[in-house]
């Protein structure tokens, strides 16, 4: 069992209070800067000492505040990849790996270092010092150095790891990986569990797709980048027709039935910007079609974001926007299946 319960005061007046288990796959810690993600990794690695709690790795106690057990970092066998490059600058890449492979006899060590350099396509850079190699090679070198010692857990701080390298790591080792990242695409593509952290607390924990599709709270929705959040009142509920009616400040929305709520309850409605549709003109009147005034347009790498009055944000494909950009009047459609009630 891998489990961490960590309590730590972080001056001034902030504290980290988290408890979570993690399995053999990749677990991502996601949250804004200053949420405590790196501190969680440091507590597990032994670089920071929690004030309270318990940390178990493969059922072995790494830290227990009550029994005053605190295994030093060098005995925890946790590979750590830092946010910044931490390859030893006075050693070549091969020497960096050799340093990490010290526990094997000389011949075995040499073989392992050679194999690891080959596996991460670093054989050509083995004789180079870190300052002489490119950033992607440095990252691969850091990963190789962390893995050559066969750690029981791999901790990766937010280092811009891409999906390909993460998959490569999974082919090399089956150890649990705890990853700090701000990349939701990476979470969806290559992560087994997602933990959303904010201000030293875990807000939600689950499979990435499940968390993204059903955020528990407005805070999680905001952190996951859902920009359309409207507070409203449940005006109608019909379980027979599987429908509900929500009254927001500027418009009414029809959605699916909301279990566990009553008429008159205050709720939040979350809708992704890419799930909304826009229509030209203002003559059409049907459910969930809201006339809105376009305030601003901002061009993004792959889409165009349209900002309407009332805080409605819509992401359109660039081609679609080019076809409609001369419209004077706009209507925004809220598809019922896109509404998430929090």
């Amino acid at each position, binding site marked *: 069992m891998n489990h961490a319960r960590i309590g730590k005061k972080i001056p001034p007046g902030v504290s980290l209070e988290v408890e979570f288990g993690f399995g053999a796959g990749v677990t991502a810690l996601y949250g804004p800067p200053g949420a405590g993600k790196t501190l969680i990794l440091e507590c597990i690695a032994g670089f920071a000492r929690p004030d309270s709690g318990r940390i178990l790795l493969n059922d072995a106690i790494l830290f227990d505040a009550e029994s005053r057990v605190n295994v030093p970092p*060098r005995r925890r*066998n946790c590979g750590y990849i830092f946010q910044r490059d*931490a390859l030893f600058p006075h050693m070549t890449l091969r020497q960096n790996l050799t*340093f990490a492979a010290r526990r094997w006899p000389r011949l075995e060590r040499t073989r392992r270092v050679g194999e690891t350099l080959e596996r991460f396509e670093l054989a050509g850079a083995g004789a180079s010092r870190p300052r002489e190699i490119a950033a992607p090679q440095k990252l691969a070198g850091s990963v190789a*150095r962390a893995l050559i*010692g066969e750690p029981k857990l791999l901790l990766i701080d937010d280092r811009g790891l891409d999906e390909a390298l993460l998959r490569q790591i999974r082919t090399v080792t089956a150890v649990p990986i705890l990853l700090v990242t701000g990349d939701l695409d990476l979470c969806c593509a290559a992560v087994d569990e997602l933990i959303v952290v904010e201000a030293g607390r875990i807000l939600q924990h689950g499979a990435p797709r499940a968390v993204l599709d059903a955020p528990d709270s407005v805070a999680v929705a905001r952190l996951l980048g859902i920009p359309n959040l409207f507070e409203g009142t449940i005006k109608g509920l019909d379980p027979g027709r599987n429908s509900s009616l929500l009254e927001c400040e500027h418009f009414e929305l029809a959605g699916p039935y909301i279990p566990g709520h009553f008429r008159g309850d205050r709720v939040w409605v979350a809708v992704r910007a890419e799930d909304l549709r826009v229509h030209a003109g203002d003559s059409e009147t049907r459910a969930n079609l809201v006339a809105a005034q376009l305030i601003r347009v901002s061009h993004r790498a792959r889409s165009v974001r349209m900002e309407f009055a009332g805080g409605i944000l819509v992401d359109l494909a660039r081609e679609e926007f080019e076809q409609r950009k001369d419209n004077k009047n706009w209507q925004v459609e809220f598809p019922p299946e896109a509404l998430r009630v929090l």
Partner: protein
Amino acid sequence: MPTDWSALWLSLRVAGLATAVSLVAGLWLGWTLLNRRFPGKRALAAVLSAALVLPAPIVCYYALAAMGRIWPVTAAGLVSAGVISAAPLLARAARTALGALDPAYGKAARSLGASDWRVWSRIELPLAARPLAAAAGMAFARLLAELAAVRVIAGRLTP
């Protein structure tokens, strides 16, 4: 008349030996002040800083005066006085040089299973070697220049 090089040779030997001993003591003091918590840590740091602002001949003179009552001034006495004078300088330099290192290197080494000694000898010391060598060079030059003067002053202590 042949030149007598013995005075220069003695000064070089004394300054060299005092610098070497001071470097070891300074490294230990600097590392301890940086990494260990103990009662009187601030007082020790203050004493080292005070020793830095006092002119080396005065520090050496009082050190020799304290020892001169026990034994006559010898090369060993001069080395001891030199160490008392140079060790604070090197302790401060070591503390600064080691403190300026990115802590990620030490953490990385520990996460790879390295002991404190291995982290120190293989990572921290090589990375801090340049500023430490510069500080040792300065300490040697300072001792070489000032021990001669001290020897003249301290000569009065010998019976």
